[in-house]
């Protein structure tokens, strides 16, 4: 099969993935607030209601628990709902339906019923959005067995990971960094393809330090790695997690065993974030290779700040670079 690739933004790549899956699988339906005529506040679902009809692409009332709760029912009854939560911070209104219902249905029914569904939600800072519009929620869901967590960092990944998520037999929360939505274009095959869940990507190889990132932090990591190379000649291996859970421990362990040093970066607050779990995994599996403590470069232990102060809160290439420098010291 020859793949024709053209340059697309993440928004466009996601829209393609949705269109492909709807085309291919009549079970796929889209629901959420303002996703129909309006195409979603970020236009991820633009044109899909026109193309697939109101029966398969529909606006819901303004109630997040309703979105997830009815998706549970629809998934059990043979559909593959892809629900949009307008901003990830609002998932808390649906927390019970997600945690105790969607994520537990296979378990509580001893495998008789399951919830193949995807919850898409934009998140992340850097665009001066209002309160609760930028909050990162992936760390909160680490304590939710039964739920997979995916965060793409590029248009190519966005399409392949969303396709894989829709195809997955279990519920997936798919978190999309708002800042990346239109920030760059990348070659994306116009054909359908999947990127397997649970597998990280090595963005660049390196020998001296492992830098673990996901979503918008991948490009921050790349910039920092460049700065480090320029300043010290050290090479940084960058891992893009792609899937936060189940986490690709193998890739992390192999890399840190090789480099002996690691830095983790995410926007979410430090306490109990994804970084903590990564440090714990490294501790358990490669403590004896570690030359320095793993450094966490994260949001601080405060709520996501108001837009006027968010630049001070978000990890920047500069902050990350100085953390890497410290971690590279003997």
């Amino acid at each position, binding site marked *: 099969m020859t793949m024709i690739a053209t340059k697309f933004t993440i928004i466009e790549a996601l829209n393609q993935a949705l269109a492909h899956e709807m085309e291919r699988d009549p079970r796929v339906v889209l629901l959420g607030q303002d996703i129909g005529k309006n195409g979603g506040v970020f236009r991820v679902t633009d044109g899909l209601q026109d193309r697939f009809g109101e029966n*398969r692409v529909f606006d819901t*009332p303004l109630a997040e628990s309703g979105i997830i709760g*009815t998706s549970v029912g*629809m998934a059990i009854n043979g559909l593959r709902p892809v629900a949009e939560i307008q901003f990830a911070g609002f998932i808390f209104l649906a927390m019970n339906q997600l945690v105790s219902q969607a994520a537990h249905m296979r*378990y509580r029914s*001893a495998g008789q019923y399951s919830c193949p569904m995807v919850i898409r939600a934009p998140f992340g800072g850097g665009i001066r959005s209002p309160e609760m519009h930028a909050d990162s929620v992936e760390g909160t869901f680490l304590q939710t067995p039964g739920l997979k967590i995916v965060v793409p960092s590029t248009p190519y990944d966005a399409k392949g990971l969303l396709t894989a998520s829709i195809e997955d037999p*279990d519920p997936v929360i798919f978190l999309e960094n708002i800042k990346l939505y239109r920030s760059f274009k990348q070659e994306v095959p116009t054909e359908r393809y999947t990127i397997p869940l649970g597998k990280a990507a090595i963005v660049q190889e390196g020998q001296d330090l492992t830098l673990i990132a996901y979503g918008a932090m991948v490009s921050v990591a790349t910039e920092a790695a460049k700065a480090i190379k320029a300043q010290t000649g050290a090479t940084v291996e960058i891992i893009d997690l792609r899937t936060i859970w189940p986490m690709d421990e193998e890739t992390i362990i192999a890399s840190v065993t090789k480099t002996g040093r690691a830095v983790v970066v995410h926007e979410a607050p430090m306490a109990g974030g994804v970084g903590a779990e990564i440090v714990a995994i490294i501790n358990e599996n490669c403590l004896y290779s570690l030359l320095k403590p793993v450094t966490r470069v994260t949001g601080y232990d405060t709520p996501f700040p108001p837009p006027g102060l968010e630049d001070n809160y978000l990890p920047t290439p500069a902050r990350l670079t100085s953390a890497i420098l410290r971690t590279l010291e003997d």
Partner: protein
Amino acid sequence: MLMHDVELDKPYQVLDPHGQLVRPMPQGLSDESLVEWYRTMWQTRFFSNKVVALQRQGRATTWGPLIGQEATAVGMGAVLEPQDWLTGSYREAGAYFARGFPIAGVAYYTRGLQPPREVCQPGGRDFRCLPLQIVIATQMLHAVGLAMAAKIKGENSVVVGGCGDGATSEGDFNEALNYAGVFKAPAVLVVTNNGWAISTPRARQTAAENLAARGVGFGIPARIVDGNDLLAVYEVMKEATDRARAGDGPTLIEAITYRLGAHTTADDPTRYRPKEELQYWEARDPMKRLKAFLIERGALTEESDAQLVEGAEAFVAAQVQLAHDHPAPGADGFFNNVFEELTPRMERQREDFRHDYGLSEGK
């Protein structure tokens, strides 16, 4: 007959508490069906009592008695067709039985284990009953979602979602009504108003005079029915499922009944409930009412009744036995069905567990 604001203050009744018809028999009801449902009501009662007894012996987990509510439960489940769905709380097990779901399935559950497919789907038939719900009101959104899917797929199936009076206070209950209304979902949402949510009386649950009135604000027709009158419950349920099946959308039904038992085996209702109330309702026992009617009708004699009751008890005992004889999952069974497949880390954890537990040779 379905209406918005009218008649919301008096429950719809076909049989009075003495089993006398106050309205004509609902159409299309055979004596055989009535006797069948009467039997299921007894099975439900015996089963509930059996579990309470087992719980006292340490052989069942905490259990919420079903007694007093058998007419509502059975009427709720009896109208369903094979392609329909049912989802309810721990208190709606009788509806599941009326729909055909094996008593053994719930009996297995009371062992503190998730009943497996072989027990829930004997002969490979999926009864389309979701696991009894513990988290109050959440199943009402599932019911609406199931119904939305049926409509999207163009299937002629309807969904019944059942919950208690207390559940009507949860956001999810109200969101369910609203989604049902907006999407004209083929769903029947049934509130079993048994007067209490643990120790909280209906009157403290909401300032509204009744729960069916909730329908008005969501544009959903609603009915109040005497929940101890099987014929009335059947009729109202039938009408509502017919409407749903015809594409006319959802109905909210409030069935007025009473929990004759404790909230659960861990509860002491004497702390909060006046004895007179219990006496009042004991006199309105749904079994007595239906029995009187069936006997007067000649569908039952005292003798055949005694046989039926005895048979129901024996059937329950056999189902419970079946459930207890069915093998429990392995000690490591709790690793199954988290995802379709175990993650690599879970595989390792299970390996460690087996090792610690002495299940395998270990590593």
